[in-house]
């Protein structure tokens, strides 16, 4: 069974950046709002280029936006991203 999880801090970063909306972030990185919602909710793991674009939108490193976890998740993290859409 695959225990790899990718959590993210997108929601927190959006609010730290002037309460940026999901639509604004989507327009900035060139995806649909639905994709941002899915990534934020941990339902979709973005590709590496998209992860870099999201990190760049927040002037942050990829590691500070996305956290790779193998096994147990910390309780304060966002739900894990699955590999499916």
């Amino acid at each position, binding site marked *: 069974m695959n225990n790899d999880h990718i959590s993210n801090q997108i929601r927190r970063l959006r609010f730290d950046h002037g309460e940026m*909306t*999901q*639509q604004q972030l*989507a*327009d900035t990185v*060139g*995806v*649909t*709002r*639905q*994709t941002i*919602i*899915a990534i934020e*909710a941990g*339902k*979709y793991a*973005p*590709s590496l280029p*998209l992860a870099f674009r999201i990190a760049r939108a927040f002037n942050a490193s990829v590691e500070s936006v996305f956290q790779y976890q193998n096994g147990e998740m910390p309780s304060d993290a966002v739900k894990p991203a*699955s590999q*499916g*859409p």
Partner: protein
Amino acid sequence: MNRTQKCAWFTLGISSLLILFLAFVLRSMFVPGDRMAGVGLVMSWLWLILLFMVGSLFLVFYRQSQAEPAADERDRLIKRNAVLASFIGVWILLAMETVLPRRLAGDAGSIPVAALPIINTAILFTAMLVYSVAVLVQYGRGVENEQ
């Protein structure tokens, strides 16, 4: 709801209607005394084809919001999975089409020649239906409407 989802809902509706219609036609071919009137059959076909064409034209000329891309990487992944699901569905249905008539009619049995294109058309629309359902299920999974 984006363009892919709207297309999927449209395809789901049309393909369901057409499969129902084809099932009705097949039933009229195999059940004695249950034949549809010739004019009624043709008119039903024409209405369904007209509906399909009008809907397709709407989807071709429908413009999505300029702010969003038509499809991003997640949309492409969803479509790819849906195509795979419908492809598998076609193979399963073709296998059933090969085996079931022999099982039902026996080795010496026969079915009307006209039934074959109808069955194949039904398989085609079933593949479209599977594609639509796969798209909608994948979009429905994990997308909450939040801001």
